[in-house]
């Protein structure tokens, strides 16, 4: 078991004195690994607070490069890193925040062929992606690996947060949404507006859920948090049902209904476009 270095007692002092964290919690954080898929609007704030809290190993998967239009919300990137892979740019910023942790940037696209291998080394997966197919791929892979998936999403003034595949009974993304919506209905990455601070709130909450999972502070009850910055009240929590026995991904053998189609995973933003013909369109 790793121990804290002397200066870590000073660095993490304010969380070391928390009931529920303490020295054992800090050692757990230091020994744990979290992978953040997507170093964009959600990934940046999530990475920031995971790094600051002392999570020992942070993987960052993103194959995009930084553009000027990202800087309005992706606060780990700067004008200096325009054109650099986001995974690298975010890793540099994360190491500035905490030079004592290990950051592993991965600048390849997450694909059905490499997802299991890329995600396997990590204790917790954060879904900070910006598109439906990768969300299904991440959920199905998290089920296969038995890894909890902290899923965030944000559009316009709205956000959503959920921990999928939580413990023995927690539902997966596919339990709630068995079939993906048609790609032509969800808008491409470019079209949808987003206020930066909304991604900030959700990404922050994702880091927090990861920290709760690692330190044992999660209550084990799956719920969906819905955020709407312009509504009153802005937050709603919805208790979720258990894992669905008929779920094509996480259901029990013999009860599964439907199959997981590889077409569910097509279309990473900026990647291959969906096969419209195959969808009868």
């Amino acid at each position, binding site marked *: 078991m790793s121990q804290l270095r002397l200066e870590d007692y000073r660095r993490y002092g304010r969380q070391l004195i928390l009931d529920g964290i303490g020295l054992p919690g800090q050692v757990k954080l230091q020994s744990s690994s979290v992978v953040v898929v997507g170093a964009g609007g959600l990934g940046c704030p999530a990475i920031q607070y995971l790094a600051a809290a002392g999570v020992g190993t942070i993987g960052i998967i993103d194959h995009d490069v930084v553009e000027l239009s990202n800087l309005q919300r992706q606060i780990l990137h700067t004008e200096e890193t325009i054109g650099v892979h986001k995974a690298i740019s975010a890793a540099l910023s994360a190491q500035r925040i905490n030079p004592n942790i290990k950051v592993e940037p991965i600048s390849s696209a997450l694909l059905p062929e490499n997802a299991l291998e890329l995600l396997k080394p990590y204790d917790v997966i954060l879904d900070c992606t910006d598109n439906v197919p990768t969300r299904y791929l991440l959920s199905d892979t998290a089920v296969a690996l038995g890894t909890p998936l902290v899923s965030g999403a944000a559009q316009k003034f709205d956000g959503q947060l959920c921990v999928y595949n939580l413990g023995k009974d927690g539902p997966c993304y596919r339990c709630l949404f068995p079939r993906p919506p048609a790609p032509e209905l969800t808008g491409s990455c470019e079209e949808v507006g987003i206020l930066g601070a909304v991604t900030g709130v959700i990404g922050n909450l994702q880091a927090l859920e990861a920290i709760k999972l690692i330190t044992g502070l999660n209550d084990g009850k799956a*719920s969906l948090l819905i955020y709407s910055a312009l509504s009153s009240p802005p937050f709603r929590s*919805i208790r979720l049902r258990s894992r669905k026995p008929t779920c094509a991904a996480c259901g029990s053998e013999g009860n599964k209904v439907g199959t997981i189609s590889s077409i569910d995973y097509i279309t990473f933003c900026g990647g291959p476009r969906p096969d419209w013909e195959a969808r009868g369109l």
Partner: protein
Amino acid sequence: MSLNISVVFQGGLDNLFSKKPSHKLTIPATSDGKPANLTYLIFWLRDNLLSEREELFIQDGTVRPGILVLVNEVEGSGDGTDWELLGEGDYELKSGDEIIFISTLHGG
């Protein structure tokens, strides 16, 4: 008998319903004397409240993939139930019900 219910649209679905997230509605009785259920409500909303792009709300006789329907989600108590637990579209509405339609977000 008509029913008074609340309907809430979230995750961008309000854009299909005159950009209004919350609606207090009086749903008329069914014409065939059967109890008004969720499926009846969904089609009634299409015919009477939907302002645009039906395909973003209904597909194959139910809400399109990516929409979650909750009945009487009670905040705080966390005892809301999503509609699959209630027999999906067969859930019979009663006066005072609050039905929430949530579209899953995918952006990041």
